[in-house]
């Protein structure tokens, strides 16, 4: 069998690649499983790096360009590792008219980063969301995995201070 048809070996010994392989198998090694597989990689590793993309592309026999295209097309995928904590500010319509821009402004000034970036000390990543669907509780913020509603500027500052000074 030519080498390019052989199943590629995972980039390293990390056990999490077994999860990725399981997803690939469940999708019948079909190209249509690309997005599902990338979801598994991101869930396991937190982000998609070039090495992971190359492995997934080879396993599913899709061109690396297509895997990269899909990974960059969808907002949910990230190619950079996140910081220790993540702060997601919802910028949905309800949150927007209830003061989300002011929250974002305050956080940007405090942390000195823009959405999509991580503080230099790798403590906090700042993200924005299209809509969390918590519109009844606008403005909403997600601290790590926890959704907080009706967030005031002072509250978000307080919360971030705990992270940055921890």
């Amino acid at each position, binding site marked *: 069998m030519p080498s390019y048809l052989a199943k590629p070996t995972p980039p390293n010994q990390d056990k999490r690649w077994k999860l990725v392989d399981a997803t690939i198998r469940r999708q019948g090694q079909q190209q249509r499983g690309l*997005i599902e597989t990338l979801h598994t990689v991101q869930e396991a590793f937190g982000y998609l790096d070039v090495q992971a993309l190359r492995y997934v592309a080879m396993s599913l026999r899709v061109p690396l360009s297509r895997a990269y295209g899909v990974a960059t097309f969808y907002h949910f995928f990230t190619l950079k590792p996140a910081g220790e904590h993540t702060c997601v500010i919802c910028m949905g319509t309800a949150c927007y008219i209830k003061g989300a821009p002011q929250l974002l402004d305050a956080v940007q000034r405090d942390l000195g980063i823009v959405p999509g970036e991580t503080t230099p000390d790798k403590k906090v990543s700042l993200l924005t969301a299209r809509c969390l669907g918590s519109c009844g509780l606008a403005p909403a913020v997600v601290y790590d995995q926890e959704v907080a509603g009706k967030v005031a500027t002072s509250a978000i500052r307080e919360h971030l201070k705990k992270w940055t000074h921890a």
Partner: protein
Amino acid sequence: MTPEELDQIAETEREAQSQFTQRVNVCVAAGCLSCQSQSVKDALDQEVTRRGTKDHCQVKGVGCMGLCSEGPLVSTSAGVLYKKVEAGDGAAILDSLDGAPVARLVCPTDVPFFQRQMKIVLENSGVIDPERVEDYIASNGYTALIKALTEMTSREVIEQVTKSGLRGRGGAGYPTGLKWSTVSKAVGTQKYVICNADEGDPGAFMDRSVLEGDPHRVLEGMLIGAYAVGASEGYIYVRAEYPLAIKRLRNAIRQAERLGLLGSNICGTRFSFRVDLRLGAGAFVCGEETALIASVEGKRGMPRPRPPYPAMEGLFGQPTLINNVETFANVAPIIRNGGEWYAGIGTEKSKGTKVFALAGRVENTGLVEVPMGISLREMVFEIGGGIPEGRKFKAVQTGGPSGGCLPSECLDMPVDYESLARAGSIMGSGGMIVMDESSCMVDVAKYFMDFCMTESCGKCIPCRVGTYQMHRILSAIGNMTATQQDMKLLEELCDLLRHTSLCGLGQSAPNPVVSTLRSFAEEYRAHIEDHKCPAGICGAQPAGETA
């Protein structure tokens, strides 16, 4: 699974439930969960165990009860609804089951917010445990499927759906019966059913609440749809941003498979159907059906020209039925009660009920289901309870980035597909955001244009470049640097995008601009000629603190 077996499950479950003389339902949908409703439920569970009343007092986690702004919500068998419940209130609530309600927590239910609603899609939401199929079956679940499979031909099923006048609840309002009959007539070796649960409109959370509160209802609708069109495989395309909905759907699929309601030869008939989940990855354009299909196929979510419509050539080139979550959720009651019953609700051209997500500057925010044809005034001032802090109503935004802003002149207009379209907006998926005088309409238009610009997939030029240019002009207006020339260009661009874009995203992207230009021209003029923002939002960014 035979009809008798289903009855048996329902009977056993009802009997088990009748053992409980006291019932406490805690909302565990995402809205209330983010106000710590899980700890309320845990506290109630512990308290019941401690009191040793576990055999006659049931604590149940249920789906959304609607009034999200007052969460966590708890309802009891004594018929009382409690709001803003904390973990420490558990004992007091249990004490109240046999006595007077806890006055400080009572949420009055004799107000228009609850009284004006009519629940069809949400009838089980807030009542049944979304993680137990038995509870769904005890509330007449899956009887519509059994009825369709054993008593009706696929043509009769389509007939009932056509008769009901149900229209697509994703926004466009295409007649569901017509779509089903097109797919059923299409020729293909394999047909697919896709449930569009990629609820991307900012400000809309109806589909999520249905999936979280009553996932089996959606599965049942898909099964009936699959039977009607002759499909044997289906996908639910759900946003990865909704982890709880995904978890409950996975659980529901597993339960339905275990009971033989999904799989091969369902109910001993020749009908087989399998369902799999596909996670969206955060692309608004994937709500468009051809883009969604591309995404299910593992590609970038880019739309393609139609025809051929997915009903003819959809997923993997095969005939495909795509409906929205809420559309599928309407199917089981229609089959159970007949199409004519459903057609008796609503207006002449818009039948049935619609679930709206009421949010923004309004007293009661949350999820409401109302019959079509209700007026906007009733929505905002009666159900919504009016504008807080005695401020003045300015506009209500419907349909998300594809919709428009309706001014106070439109308040007495009935809410149905045609009226909203005539007023320059769309029904959309059902987000309804109320704005008061503190919102600047130019800023709102810019916000939506920013959304469409970022979400444009980049395939067709009118949308990719047009949204960028329109955003630039709107930003200039916001910075008070725009001229009359810019306004003229803006209007031209609206026309251009509408007529030359490839898909709905680009075609409807100008809607927020067109509708605000139409109703709030004065605000645009003030920005350009007087260099003033009447709401005080634009220009030098005010560092306003939120309350």
